[in-house]
């Protein structure tokens, strides 16, 4: 199991942007895909996208393409999820997870970060 450590909870106003982080172990960070998963209050799980930090190859969920941005900084073994023009509907817990990925856009998630709660409120 890989330990992934996420940034702290954040409160933002509508229209603002945010960038949350997920730090993994330096020893193996380059060899895994990392996924970002959204969980709205009282709801299920939705994968937003995945990134391969080694070359920043990124793939997004077709339903969320253009709404989010995922990036990575290999020098500090960290991936980022950026959300812009925040709305109340962005209120959610956001998880990063190590993705065991196959093919074009498929796989499962075998280690999870602790989650970052995002609150959008005026």
């Amino acid at each position, binding site marked *: *199991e890989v330990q992934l450590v996420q940034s702290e909870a954040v409160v933002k106003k509508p229209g603002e942007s945010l960038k949350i982080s997920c730090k993994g172990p330096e020893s193996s960070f380059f060899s895994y895909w990392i*996924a970002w998963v959204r969980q709205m209050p009282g709801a*299920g*799980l*939705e*994968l937003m996208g995945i990134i391969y930090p080694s070359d920043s190859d990124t793939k997004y*969920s*077709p339903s969320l393409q253009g709404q989010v941005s995922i990036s990575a900084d290999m020098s500090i073994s960290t991936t980022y999820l950026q959300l812009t023009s925040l709305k109340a509907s962005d209120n959610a817990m956001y*998880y990063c*997870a190590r993705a*065991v990925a*196959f*093919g074009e*856009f*498929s*796989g*499962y*998630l*075998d*280690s*999870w*970060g*602790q*989650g970052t709660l995002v609150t959008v409120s005026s």
Partner: protein
Amino acid sequence: DMVMTESPATLSVSPGETVTLSCRTSQHINNDLAWYQQKPGQPPRLLIYGASLRATGIPARFSGTGSGTEFTLTISSLQSEDSAIYYCQQYNVWTFGRGTKVDLK
């Protein structure tokens, strides 16, 4: 689009009982299915991948079966710490089911 149907939505069981959760997919997915457990205030945890393979550290009382479009997660001798929401996820486009909540009586 792929539709994932988990049933029942909620289950109330006594410790020691055996629980069977169902996950059906609208398209054949071979054995490309995973199961996760999520307890309140915690991130999900991978239980099963490849429909029947237990993840590292998962107790043997958790077992997964199925192939094609019908899958089951069985929890034998339910323990108090098994109270949680269980999600299935099919690999393609990483689609999750809505989850089954398991409560202990």
